[in-house]
């Protein structure tokens, strides 16, 4: 365990050092973050800007903004931690450099998941946290609800990681996976609004088929103390099940991997 923690520290140091070489990229990353938050805020701003509109799907403006905050935070998590690693899996399979990863005396899934970071997209995480703090400041929040929200958000991050890993693992059979993850980002765009803002059949899809409801709506509900017990219990169960399934899928993929040259 300590070995893995030490490795995370080494990986982080290496990738941060490599990224800071290109300082001009920072401007680009800030612009991209501004674009992201702009889209998220405009969508919700126009909705609430209509005369007579005080709630969307039963959520007040501040509450809905909380969901947007969690959405930005998750976008940041994906951009900083998940995507830089997962997008390299397909490349490694195609070029054969996956061989070296598999030969190393550490768990291969750990290696492909933690090797890279995109620190330049940290502003997304800061913006997300800022939005959450701003909207929570006007709502009644108890220490208990903060704890519940934190725990549920942790399982949300596991869910996001597992979906990405599952999609990226298909690279062992289909050489290109960029399109599939693009499709996930498209569906994930629905997470910028509370699930109850959607028509009923779509709500069902967003909760049980593509579980994006657990990523933003559920932690926000936990923070405002409006979460039902069923959803609170379902979130960690879904996360654990997804983790197990993707772990097995990954092992299966590695077992059937035959290198690029053989």
């Amino acid at each position, binding site marked *: 365990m300590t070995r893995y923690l030490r490795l995370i520290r080494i990986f982080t140091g290496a990738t941060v050092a490599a990224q800071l070489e290109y300082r001009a990229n920072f401007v*680009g990353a800030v612009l991209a973050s501004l674009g992201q938050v702009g889209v998220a805020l405009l969508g919700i701003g*126009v909705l609430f800007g209509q005369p007579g509109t005080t709630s969307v799907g039963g959520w007040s403006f501040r509450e809905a903004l909380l969901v947007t905050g969690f959405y930005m935070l998750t976008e940041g998590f994906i951009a900083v931690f998940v995507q830089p690693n997962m997008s390299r899996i397909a490349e490694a399979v195609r070029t054969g450099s996956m061989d070296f990863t598999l030969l190393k005396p550490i768990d291969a899934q750990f290696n492909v998941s933690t090797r890279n970071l995109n620190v330049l997209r940290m502003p997304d995480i800061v913006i997300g946290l800022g939005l959450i703090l701003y909207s929570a400041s006007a709502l009644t929040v108890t220490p208990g609800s903060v704890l519940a929200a934190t725990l549920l958000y942790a399982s949300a991050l596991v869910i996001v990681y597992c979906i990405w890993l599952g999609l990226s693992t298909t690279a062992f059979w289909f050489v290109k996976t960029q399109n599939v993850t*693009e499709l996930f980002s498209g569906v994930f765009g629905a997470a910028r609004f509370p699930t109850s803002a959607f028509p009923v059949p779509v709500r069902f899809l967003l909760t049980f088929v593509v579980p994006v409801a657990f990523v933003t709506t559920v932690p926000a509900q936990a923070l405002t103390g409006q979460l039902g017990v069923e959803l609170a219990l379902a979130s960690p169960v879904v996360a654990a099940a997804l983790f197990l399934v993707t772990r097995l899928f990954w092992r299966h993929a590695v077992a059937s991997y035959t290198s690029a040259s053989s």
Partner: protein
Amino acid sequence: MAEYRAEVVIWMLSGTLSLVMMLVWMAQAAAAPGGMVRGYKPADFATYFLATWVVAQLLVVWVSHELDYEIRQGVLSPKLLRPLDPFWQHLLGHVSERFIRIVPMLALVAVFAWLSGARFTPHWWAYPAALGLIVVGFSARFLWEYTIGLLAFWTDSSTSFQEIVWLVYAALGGMFAPLAFYPEWVQRIAVWTPFPYMLGLPAQLLAGKATLGQAGQGALVLLGWLAVFWVVRLTVWRAGLRKYGAVGA
């Protein structure tokens, strides 16, 4: 392009913003007193946003990513030896992709319209008018995206500029809501930009909520912008080539 048919469908489905907004607005109208927001019933929202989705699909341009790659990797150099501006090759690539895109797109629209209750206008003249606006709008968008791609001669964050410009295009074009839903001052700025005429106006034509006169007016504004973007593109291209040659490529 025909080889990538499955990918084209996935690309189309990943442009979900207008579909997400459609679902939210439909639920919003259904829950509102009287069953409508600003005179839009759920079916009206479905029609507007599906039309926006169709128009946005036909306006898709990815040339700035290609140029960014070509300039950075030096792929551009051999292309410069040809007696034709690489601009035309990119343009034809985009145009031919439209023909592949249109068949699965119409199938998807039919399914979405059936599911959401959207109804497009019965007036035949709205369709050629919308198509005309889309053609001019696409040309204008292609030119500005091309110019952004050319910024790769000077900076390595040209694709992030593209994200910001896309945001303005989507917002003022009416991808979040019909333009009439925006605050007054935003509308006053928007009418001077090309965005409402290339995205929102064709969508309103297809939804039967815009007149032929408005279409003509929009076409004139778009043509003006087209001329501006043409000059800008050419100027940036010439300046960029001088810069590119200077580093010994």
